[in-house]
């Protein structure tokens, strides 16, 4: 191999994106070298201000002829381009009895070839170009991505749009993928973590809504190639598409290219009802258990969370801070400090307060603890839930939490890809860019009393559901030192959920 000098890619070039990528500016000079004494405590250090302006969404936003919104963030540091296409389709558009059709359609879109290329030819071409092409579907959106080196951009776009517009849905590939899905279904009860995730979602949202239901063997067998063809034909089209482009592109030329490639791409089906309807499950408070022969119980405790009604609602920001102090903030949160750091009862312990866009999120506290100490750790979690509802946080807790939200904020816009995709996501869910501009100020306005008030209002001990997966024989009695047993929780009542058949998800005996 020749040893001639090699090219060096200089990385620090993102400013080429111009004003679009608002660069932070160090306003003050760093600490002077003249004062070499190291202070005894870090509080004595002084820092310059960090100015960070949110990138202006409007300057990155473009509309193609026909109305497709595209966010473009140029970045020429590396010869790489990323494209993300988000369609307003997904599980919410599946017909009855065909759960999983959206995901399978998205998967075969990528794996099933195109009108002009067999699956093998398509894969060979993509791999030879080192192009990464993906396609997935979730509850209310389907996402396709392209990641390609600049010189292969044209060929990469050819493949990508041929895939989106003229998929083959090759019958043999469909059968192979269905067989793989069946094997994955068989593993549904193998990992305790998967059992917890499934049963918790079912307890919170029921088993029938598209946000929680899961494919069974019957669904899988009912889905044929025609279903995929119809789902794609009816729900994929430029009229429900949002694009995000980032990397080594020229804005004007990529827009022209995309406009050309999307001309005449329309879904055959009527536009879906929007916003989509949420689950209508009535939660049944209480303690639930699923048996699993493992040394550690996996625990969730919680109830439904909230839905954004209005992104200017101060209560939502106070709730974010309340959750951060309770269990969202890692080592500065109460659940981690008490369950992990004080007592050594779990590796991870924390909480999340879900604020959903189209329906309520989920509030949950969670940890994994050896079977005999599940009860003791649960007692601590419930004590902390009670405390955050009763007492306002300390001034220090409030200060640390708010500072963390405000000062980590620039990380939301760390890379060109993140910027483009954040704004594209806002477009999809209908959130005004104003949200980001005012975010820090709204967090800054949260008071200690507000935190207590929203905690009392939105955390509801009467509605709590607790789920534990583990070995009940060891969990029930509690620890040898008698610190707590499951008898003292939920009035000593527990519902032992029967294991489910992994293929039908019906309770097995």
């Amino acid at each position, binding site marked *: 191999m020749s040893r001639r000098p090699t090219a060096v890619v200089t990385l620090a070039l993102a400013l080429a994106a111009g004003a679009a990528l608002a660069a932070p500016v160090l306003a003050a000079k760093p600490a002077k070298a003249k004062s070499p004494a190291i202070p005894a405590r870090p509080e004595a250090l002084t820092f310059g201000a960090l100015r960070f302006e949110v990138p202006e969404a409007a300057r990155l936003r473009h509309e193609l002829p026909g109305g497709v919104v595209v966010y473009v963030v140029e970045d020429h540091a590396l010869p790489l381009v990323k494209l993300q296409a988000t369609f307003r389709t997904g599980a919410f558009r599946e017909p009855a009895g065909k759960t999983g059709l959206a995901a399978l359609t998205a998967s075969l879109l990528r794996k099933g070839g195109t009108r002009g290329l067999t699956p093998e030819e398509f894969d060979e071409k993509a791999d030879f170009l080192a192009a990464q092409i993906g396609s997935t579907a979730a509850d209310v959106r389907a996402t396709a991505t392209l990641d390609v*080196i600049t010189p292969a951009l044209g060929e990469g776009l050819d493949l990508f749009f041929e895939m989106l517009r003229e998929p083959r849905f090759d019958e043999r590939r469909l059968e192979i993928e269905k067989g793989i899905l069946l094997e994955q279904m068989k593993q549904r009860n193998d990992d305790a973590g998967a059992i917890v995730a499934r049963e918790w979602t079912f307890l919170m949202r029921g088993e029938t809504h598209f946000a929680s239901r899961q494919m069974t063997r019957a669904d899988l067998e009912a889905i044929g190639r025609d279903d995929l063809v119809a789902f794609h034909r009816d729900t994929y089209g430029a009229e429900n598409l949002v694009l995000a482009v980032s990397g080594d592109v020229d804005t004007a030329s990529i827009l022209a290219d995309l406009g050309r490639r999307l001309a005449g791409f329309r879904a055959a089906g009527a536009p879906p009802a929007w916003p989509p309807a949420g689950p209508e499950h009535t939660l049944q408070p209480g303690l639930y258990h699923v048996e699993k022969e493992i040394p550690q119980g996996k625990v969730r405790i919680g109830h439904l969370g909230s839905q954004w009604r209005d992104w200017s609602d101060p209560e939502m920001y106070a709730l974010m801070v309340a959750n951060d102090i309770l269990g969202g903030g890692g080592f500065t949160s109460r659940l981690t400090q008490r369950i992990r750091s004080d007592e050594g009862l779990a590796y991870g312990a924390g909480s999340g307060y879900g604020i959903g866009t189209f329906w309520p999120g989920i509030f949950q506290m969670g940890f994994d*603890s050896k079977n005999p100490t599940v009860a003791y750790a649960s007692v601590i979690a419930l004590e902390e839930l009670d405390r955050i509802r009763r007492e306002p946080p300390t001034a220090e807790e409030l200060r640390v939490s708010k500072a963390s939200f405000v000062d980590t904020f620039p990380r939301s816009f760390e890379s060109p890809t993140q910027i483009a995709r954040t704004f594209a996501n806002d477009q999809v869910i209908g959130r005004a860019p104003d949200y980001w501009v005012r975010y820090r100020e709204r967090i800054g306005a949260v008071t200690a009393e507000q935190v207590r008030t929203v905690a009392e209002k939105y955390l509801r001990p009467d509605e709590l559901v607790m789920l534990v997966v583990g070995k009940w024989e060891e969990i029930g009695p509690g620890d040898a030192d008698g610190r707590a047993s499951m008898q003292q929780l939920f009035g000593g009542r527990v519902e032992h959920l029967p294991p489910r058949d992994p293929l039908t998800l019906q309770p097995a005996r």
Partner: protein
Amino acid sequence: MRDAARRRTRRLAGALLLAAGFGLAPVPAETPRAEVPVQEFTLDNGMKFLLVPRPEQATVMGGWVAKVGSANERPGITGVAHFFEHMMFKGSRVIGTTNAARDAQIIAEQEALQEQIRALYAVQRQRYRRGEIDDPFDPAARPRELVDLESRFQTLVEEQRQLMVKDEFDRIYTEAGASGLNATTNWDSTIYFITVPANKLELWFWMESERLLQPVFREFYAERDVVQEERRLRVDSTPTGPFDEQLNAMFWTSHPYKWDTIGWMSDLRMLSLADAEDFFSTFYAPNNLTAALVGNFDPAQVRQLAERYFGRIPRGKKPVPDVVTLEVPQLAEKRMNAECDCQPQLAVQFHTAPFQHKDSYVLDIVEGLLNGETGRLRKRLVLDSQIAAAASSSQQSWRYNGFFSLSAETKGDATPADLEAALWAEIERLRDEPVPAEELAKVNNQIAATSFRNLESPFFLLLQLLFYEGWGDWSYLNTWSEQTLAVTAEDVQRVARKYFTPENRTVATYLRKAGSAAEPVPAELADLPGPLQQQVMGQIRQIRQSTDAERLEQMLGQLAAQRSQLPPEFQQIVDVVEREVRERLETLARAAEEGQP
């Protein structure tokens, strides 16, 4: 500067894709590569710094690697490298307590009690060896003296808590807007990292040098419990974790890679503060550390700060000991047959070459040939013969040794034996046939693209620098693609023949544990009471595995005889069992016709 660099980038990527344009020609051997300009300097005490300025960022990602991992442990203290990593977040003389003097006294008193506790556990182990108790750590089997000691210890913990400033190390960073404070330990290195706002860079220097200069390992025993929970989480409560751990222990004969970084549970129960302090003084000397910063900073200022803050830490008194044990060559195949709540699967693993060994680059190419959407494994096992739901390979070249593994999960009626035969056929193909030029070009294109993608995320860039430094040389980041693109088809054949031999392999098969839920239960049995269903399923399982046609024929006779004696509600059980026997007999008959065993 910016434009020049951009032109170069274009040109090199153009060269890269020429191959794709023509569809046949391999990538030219002198294809240039992506390279990160790294500024490097070393302090007088031996601590090395690597700087990658990225002025477009609002942050600095900072980290450092201690070139020590679980390979530096010995039996009895397995897990200490990782546990010690946890202790590095517990503060210092200044951070974490309101009364450093009393705090130190309490720790000494706690340690004296723990010495006595450890002595009692020696007795418990003796009782366990003699069969007097089933578990030396059973809380119910604790002698009264032990319970008393533990309760006295707890009193000290509570006194210490009154003086403590809880998790202050974390709180200071969090309040400053830093995020992602964490660390990771592997067999060869321990890596600590965080992201700080660009204006708070000096805080990073203060905090990181503080915990190296005067750490205090308070809350040692609560944290030891946390690490045990981490082990239960990552290993003991996962479907294949405990088996994977034993596979690794079987794979290595002499080298300390044989125990997992998390450590054996018995050792985690016994680790002492003295073990941790000893570990720190031996391996955390600045001459065994490298720091890296990626982000928005002035390199000249960083150099001043590094000298001021880290320069005050004295060089280690003794040289850092090397791992002297070499892995002995494997003489014969090793095999493990496991049963778990898992998809039936197979893993085949070979001893290979360590980090920066010339063969390691060839093995990267082998991995590229085998993996991916158009890789040989997916083609043969998943798409063509359809015996696997997934198949992949993994190439690992670590500091002291390397290994290459192939794994696959069954689909349908296929067995791990079927997977093994198919994987072995791919191994033989690598040994027997030169790689076609176009296929090698495809892998080369992917290597070249990967070398750019590796530089995209500043955090990933930081981790790569620290990992490679932990293995011995950060500059691997900049030389890897060049070395790998130079690999030839002959190299692939040579390396495959050298390492992929029967006597150098370790094979693990995993079968689904009998009675676990994924087994298809015939519909007629679905409504039977649980224990009876299990009993019938046990019998069906034996039938499905039987190769003895004569015995099966006998069973048919027995079933006919039993039928008349059973109450009507059990008739359908007989139907099901009889059907299973007949199906098995047909399968055996077909196999006999096709001349298979």
